[in-house]
């Protein structure tokens, strides 16, 4: 750890962004810095932001990969609007990121990468550093040279040596912010051996020692442990939480899981994670395409498994016809759509919330599904558990909406007490007496789950309209009217099976900010700050998007103004206006980036000052 030779300052919160080529290992050191920060006990929020190309041309703007971590001694919910420190490995990374840095913030550059050729390749006409020195504290460190020097006696190629330079930056930042490096060392030991292990360990320490001895950094900083709820914590990303939610559903409902999936960014990690859990009885099936992925899952649901398919926007659209069959045959299926910027291929690694209307209305005919959205990375776990409960108890497909931001962002997560997790009851029909496939539970309207292998329950189901009760093929006009209504009513009744929506802040007043999904952190932070400043604003975050919570209309009517903030061009906004005739305003953003707290705050201030006028 850092020697106490230099003065130490205490800070409440810091945001650091590492940026370099997509092959420079920015995501790795971001993740390691995050782990040690979590172990140290700060609250934190991260935002990995990387290109879709695995290795874009070196030094190009298209290839810049970044990782931002915000950590604090207080409760935080976002990766911060502006980094306080930017660490860049080349001019392209500087060009892509310098504009985001807080004025007066620090920019650490690998000066070895600032050759005239690289500067030109990044699109700068002249050396950008002199101009930046006027606005920021620019610290030039010869990271490449110092890395090579530290490894001069190792029998590694220059190329191999240079690959450790990211750990120099990690070591330097670990010294500057008093982060422990033991968890990183442990990770390196498990991952490398021989000279490569030695190289990475040595460079990590060289970065720390450099910080300690050089005069470039006169002060180091501490960020005290956060005052968060007591308990046991771990770091979790949204995608890991989704996968673990699936595992938890399997354990809690005592049913094996079947995952049908086709690789797609940013959903593939859920497939990777679940594929590791064969000992939980998980059957992962990498299908030939998105359609086969959902179809195989529906087959498994029909056969009695907890069935799930994971995807992202373009893949979700391919699944829609099969999802309609699951609506028609009333089978329990969970579809997880980790939304990304579109339309079409769009920006696969960038976030957006623009599949809500497609989920609600994107299938042929009236085809209602239950729609849930996760609010935070850790919440992904609970949403999946809830999705399986609703799917099985109400015999309906459930779509879970996550997004690219939640997928890869990490936050400290209070480890749930397994004993306190719900154990939803699963009812499977086994009694042939009076059995018919489309009889219904009088309360929920759910039909029986009658799976192959059960003697006496042989029956046929399919996508053709079915006669009420018997399930036989029917083209009868009155029957179709009835079945369309029954399918709608079955989903609508789920509102009775959900907790009421609670407002953050007062339950009435001047302005209500409405959000859903991965914008929860930014919206809540903006609203809480505005409330602390004495503004009359509250917020709600809608987790159940279909059906809406029973008290939603009432809540909306208790505020003079309503603002819907979402990362699309007004999808929830349209739904709320159509459903409740509320003259809500819209704050829309579609840049492939999450909301900044400041953007929301500006809109709140604008709407409240209009009201005051």
């Amino acid at each position: 750890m850092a020697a106490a030779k230099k003065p130490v300052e205490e800070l409440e919160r810091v945001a650091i962004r590492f940026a370099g080529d997509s092959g420079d290992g920015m995501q790795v050191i971001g993740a390691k810095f995050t782990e040690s920060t979590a172990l140290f006990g700060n609250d934190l929020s991260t935002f990995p932001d990387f290109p879709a190309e695995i290795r874009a041309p070196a030094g190009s703007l298209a290839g810049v990969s970044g990782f931002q971590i915000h950590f604090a001694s207080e409760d935080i919910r976002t990766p911060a609007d502006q980094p306080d420190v930017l660490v860049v490995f080349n001019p392209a990374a500087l060009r892509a990121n310098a504009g985001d840095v807080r004025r007066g913030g620090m920019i650490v550059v690998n000066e070895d990468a600032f050759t005239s050729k690289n500067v030109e390749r990044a699109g700068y006409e002249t050396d950008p550093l002199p101009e930046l020195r006027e606005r920021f504290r620019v610290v030039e460190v010869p990271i490449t040279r110092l890395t090579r020097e530290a490894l001069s006696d190792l029998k590694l190629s220059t190329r191999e040596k240079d690959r450790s330079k990211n750990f120099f930056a990690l070591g330097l930042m670990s010294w500057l912010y008093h982060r422990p490096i033991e968890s990183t060392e442990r990770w390196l030991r498990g991952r490398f051996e021989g000279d490569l292990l030695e190289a990475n360990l040595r460079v990590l320490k060289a970065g720390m020692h450099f910080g300690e001895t050089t005069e470039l950094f006169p002060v180091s900083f501490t960020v005290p442990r956060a005052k968060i709820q007591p308990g046991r914590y771990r770091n979790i990303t949204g995608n890991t939480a989704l996968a673990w939610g699936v595992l938890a559903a399997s354990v809690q409902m005592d049913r094996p899981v079947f995952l049908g999936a086709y690789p797609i960014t940013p959903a593939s990690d859920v497939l990777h994670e679940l594929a590791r859990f064969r000992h939980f009885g998980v059957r992962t099936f990498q299908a030939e395409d998105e359609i086969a992925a959902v179809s195989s899952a529906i087959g498994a649901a029909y056969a009695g498994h907890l069935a799930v398919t994971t995807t992202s926007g373009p893949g979700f659209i391919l699944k829609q016809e099969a999802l309609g069959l699951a609506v028609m045959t009333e089978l329990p299926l969970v579809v997880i759509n980790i939304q990304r910027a579109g339309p079409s291929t769009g920006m696969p690694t960038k976030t957006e919330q623009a599949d809500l209307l497609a989920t609600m209305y994107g299938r042929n005919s009236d085809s209602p599904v239950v729609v849930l959205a996760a609010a935070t990375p850790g919440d992904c776990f609970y949403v999946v558990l809830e999705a399986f409960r609703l799917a099985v108890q109400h015999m309906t497909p459930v779509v879970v909406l996550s997004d690219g931001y939640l997928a890869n962002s990490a936050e400290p997560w209070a480890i749930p007490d397994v004993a306190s997790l719900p154990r939803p009851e699963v009812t499977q029909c086994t009694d042939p007496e009076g059995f018919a496939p489309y009889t219904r539970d009088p309360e929920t309207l759910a039909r029986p789950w009658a799976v192959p292998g059960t003697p006496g329950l042989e029956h046929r189901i399919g996508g053709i309209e079915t006669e009420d009760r018997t399930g036989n093929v029917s083209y009868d006009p009155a029957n179709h009217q009835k079945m369309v209504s029954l399918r709608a009513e079955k989903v609508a009744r789920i509102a009775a099976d959900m907790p009421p929506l609670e407002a953050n802040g007062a339950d009435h007043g001047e302005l209500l900010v409405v959000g859903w999904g991965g914008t929860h952190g930014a919206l809540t932070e903006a609203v809480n700050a505005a409330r602390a400043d004495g503004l009359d604003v509250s917020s709600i975050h809608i987790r159940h998007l279909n059906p809406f919570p029973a008290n939603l209309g009432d809540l909306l009517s208790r505020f003079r103004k309503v603002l819907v903030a979402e990362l699309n061009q007004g999808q929830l906004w349209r739904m709320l206006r159509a459903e409740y005739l509320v003259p809500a305003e819209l704050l829309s953003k579609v840049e492939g980036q999450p909301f900044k707290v400041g953007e929301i705050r500006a809109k709140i201030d604008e709407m409240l000052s209009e009201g005051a006028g």
Partner: protein
Amino acid sequence: MAALTRKDFTSDQDVRWCPGCGDYSILANVQKVMPELDVPRENVVFVSGIGCSSRFPYYMDTYGFHTIHGRAPAFASGIKASRPELSVWVVTGDGDGLSIGGNHLLHVLRRNLDLQVLLFNNRVYGLTKGQYSPTSREGMKTKSTPQGAIDHPVDPIAFALGAGATFVARTIDVDAPHLQEMLHRAHAHPGTAFVEILQNCPVYNDHEWEEVEDRKTRVHANLAVHDGEPLVYGPKGARKGIRIADGVPSIVNLGDEDDPIAAGVAVHDEASPSPSYAFALASMQRPDFPVPTGVFRAVEKPTYESMLQAQLDHAAEERGPADLRALLESGDTWTVEG
């Protein structure tokens, strides 16, 4: 429990195919064979896509799932992979299986799940009223091809062989004994069993298979293959054999006393290590060659679900039973004191 009969596999639904449709015969033969397979009725699942053939599950008193166009193999894969003890039958057609569903058919065959795929090939779209299909002959005039089809057709047998299918057979809708034999063989095969059934559509493509369905012409137009026997067909006095050289079949005339093998006629080998022999057979088309029927290829490979089960078992043995608490607390954690 009393032995089951054909009636036990007949549902209470009215069969709604056109009068004279080849599907009636196929349905009757499947219902006849089912009780002979010694599978509990509740373990039988018929899965279909969309098209005339795909109405099949409604008429079987088993579990049945009439799904969406072309995707039946994917639904069936999910059923079989999750419940290996079930006897899963996919019923599809030339449009459902080889056009919209070609991709899924390819992948179920290469994965080798232990299920049966019955592809009814009538070389036309029936349910949509008579457009040409991917197996229609070139030049076929239909509503959508008034000047004649200009697609080169796909042969279902060659397709299945190309996909790496471990069991590939062809039979004829009205040939009850042969159809039943192929159903038995398909069911007995451990792996995906693909059976093309030449099926007549009396409304939109009548007489397509007449030469092989009609007893009088069949003797010239059909080559029934049997494992270990030479490829010989034709009536007494006009016997012919098939030679295969460099993967190319040719016809040799045989006298009644000639030894076919001595005359160079190929001997049928279902388990040939290479599929090229079966490909050569599949290339035989009317009018130049007789239509081969029987088992083209039958080889064994591990099934998808058996390998999946082995992974599940291995993981359970190595890592113990599911422990949610241990999972949630795995890796780096920390405690915040109150």
